[in-house]
């Protein structure tokens, strides 16, 4: 449907008022609820990140105390992982667009969907309550390694319970998506006619479903030890702290693919739309998501190469780690091939997608470095790892998130942002990002350990460059946010399909109506990206 017919009230207009939002069963509203909450927590987490950078500008104690610093990076990690990046793309854009892209009017369990959001809010309250209650936020690192997490006096139990609750929120979202994909595809849309974003979410959801409970129970064991004295990881009675690490990473490694796969799904949407041609290797991209999800379960040990795990186990984890890189590289090459002989319309969303590929390459390739046993012995728990994961998480998923925001912005709000400012913001963001994190890779190679409040003088210059990068990043980010807000208040309406996309969300009006479609959506013949205006290849 385009706006040619009499347009129905859109989902913003049907009902108004706070309660019509926070108790809404509409997947689009829930998606936006997630957007606002996830976005706010991102800013909180980011501010904490900048605070750390300021402290690290010079060696020695300047701004905050050692203990505070430790609490800051823990809270930063917890917020960024559990409150920002894991829910980011699936819960925001997955909620909003999965049903529309499948040609249906909601997810399979709308009420469960709302419950997920409420659980998310509850978990967030738990996490932030540590600022006020007890002896302050946990100071353990987001990994909560035993036995320190059991011994410290800070409010670990609350943070851990928060992660537990957030885990269940994430599980329920995943469950909802799997059922939605199995049951609610438009008539005629087989699995192989689904948009790749849906495929990515499908693989992601399975990870959420099958990995998250393991960390749930592990964190409960930490709570039990702190509150009831049930010391399952207590070394003084023969408990094994390394077992804790195993259980933690059995979840937390697959979790990094919860963060990465949806981002890859976004990129797989953006590139064909702006290249105006079909995606190259649809099946390879779709199935490699499943392959990554599957193999990703069996590589957790690469976080523990120096923990005292046995040699043979280390070899096996190392080689499996390398195998996950292969489906990932297949995706990268497919995206590249999709640009080949396209008719490329260079717009902001595409720039974010291209930046995603660049940053993710750095992140992924540094991942290979730490995946090698010998190199990891030197690089483990240094800033190299910090650089690696910010490149994949922020440079990858974060940039994909921003890209999705710019891509679907006109669809969600029916408005358009200022493209020039968006381009400038992008450029600043990109430069700032790389100035911030590239020095960390070098710092790591030089041997600066992470979670260090203070450092040796030889690391000074690089830390300063990095901190300066964070300032540039702030400017870019604020400009981007400002521009998006401004666009929202502009009077001009955006067309229903500004990018000439052909997946189903571009067939409805912008913003969509309450039930998404008022006429059965028409599937594109020959696959979801078969652009009718392109030549046959």
């Amino acid at each position, binding site marked *: 449907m385009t706006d040619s017919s009499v347009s129905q009230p859109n989902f913003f207009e049907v009902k108004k008022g706070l309660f019509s939002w926070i108790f809404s069963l509409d997947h689009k509203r829930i998606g936006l609820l997630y957007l606002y909450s996830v976005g706010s927590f991102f800013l909180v987490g980011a501010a904490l990140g900048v605070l750390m950078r300021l402290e690290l500008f010079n060696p020695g104690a300047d701004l905050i105390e050692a203990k505070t610093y430790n609490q800051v990076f823990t809270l930063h990690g917890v917020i960024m992982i559990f409150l920002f990046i894991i829910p980011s793309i699936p819960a925001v854009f997955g909620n909003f667009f999965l049903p529309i892209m499948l040609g249906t009017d909601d997810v399979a369990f709308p009420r469960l969907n709302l419950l997920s959001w409420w659980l998310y809010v509850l978990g967030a309250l738990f996490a932030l309550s540590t600022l006020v209650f007890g002896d302050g936020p946990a100071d353990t690192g987001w990994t909560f390694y035993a036995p320190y997490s059991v011994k410290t006096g800070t409010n670990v139990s609350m943070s851990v319970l928060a992660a537990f609750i957030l885990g269940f929120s994430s599980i329920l979202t995943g469950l909802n998506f799997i059922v939605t994909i199995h049951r609610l595809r438009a008539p005629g849309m087989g699995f192989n006619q689904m948009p790749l974003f849906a495929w990515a979410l499908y693989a992601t959801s399975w990870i959420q479903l099958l990995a998250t409970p393991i960390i749930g129970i592990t964190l409960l064991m930490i709570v039990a030890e702190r509150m009831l004295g049930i010391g399952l990881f207590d070394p003084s009675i023969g408990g094994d702290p390394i077992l804790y690490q*195993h259980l933690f990473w059995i979840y937390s490694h697959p979790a990094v693919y919860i963060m990465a796969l949806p981002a890859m799904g976004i990129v797989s949407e953006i590139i064909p739309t702006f290249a105006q041609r079909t995606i190259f290797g649809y099946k390879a991209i779709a199935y490699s998501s499943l392959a990554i999800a599957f193999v990703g379960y069996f590589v957790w*040990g690469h976080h523990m190469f120096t923990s005292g795990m046995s040699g043979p*186990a280390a070899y096996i984890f190392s080689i499996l780690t390398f195998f996950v890189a292969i489906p990932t590289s297949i995706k990268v090459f497919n995206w590249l091939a999709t640009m080949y002989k396209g008719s490329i319309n260079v717009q902001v969303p595409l720039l974010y997608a291209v930046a995603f590929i660049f940053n993710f390459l750095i992140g992924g390739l540094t991942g290979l470095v730490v995946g090698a046993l010998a190199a990891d012995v030197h690089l483990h728990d240094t800033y190299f790892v910090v650089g690696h994961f910010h490149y994949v998480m922020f440079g990858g998923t974060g940039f994909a998130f921003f890209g999705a925001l710019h891509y679907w912005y006109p669809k969600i709000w029916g408005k358009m942002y200022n493209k020039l400012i968006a381009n400038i913001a992008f450029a600043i963001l990109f430069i700032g990002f790389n100035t911030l994190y590239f020095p960390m890779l070098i710092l790591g190679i030089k041997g600066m350990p992470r979670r260090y409040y203070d450092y040796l003088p030889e690391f000074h210059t690089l830390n300063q460059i990095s901190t300066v990068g964070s300032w540039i990043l702030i400017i870019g980010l604020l400009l981007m946010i400002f521009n998006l807000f401004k666009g929202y208040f502009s009077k001009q309406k955006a067309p229903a399909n500004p990018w000439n996309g052909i997946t189903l969300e571009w067939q409805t009006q912008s913003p969509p109506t309450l039930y998404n479609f008022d006429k059965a959506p028409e599937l594109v013949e020959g696959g979801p990206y078969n652009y009718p205006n392109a030549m046959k290849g």
Partner: protein
Amino acid sequence: MSNNKLTTDHHDDAPHITSYVEHFGTWISLILLTFMTVFISVFGADLNTLTVATALFIASVKALVVAYYFMHLKYDPKLYKIMMLVVMALFMVFLIMLTIDYLTR
């Protein structure tokens, strides 16, 4: 209502109704297995390390019976069996990887 739904994953729509007798039979076999495992453990102590294996084996048979008959897996579409299999396989691989670590420390 529900027949509007897409049924790509499921073929037959008429639900299978398990008879009371079948449930009762299932129960009998489960009880027998329970007594068997208790018997082996209490009186068959000389099996030594094998007791763990037999106990777990019997438990797995019981679990299978519960899943297949009580939980209706036997009459469910293939998808459910595949999913169950994948979940179990996943868990087994976790165990195997951990065993590798602990046995070779």
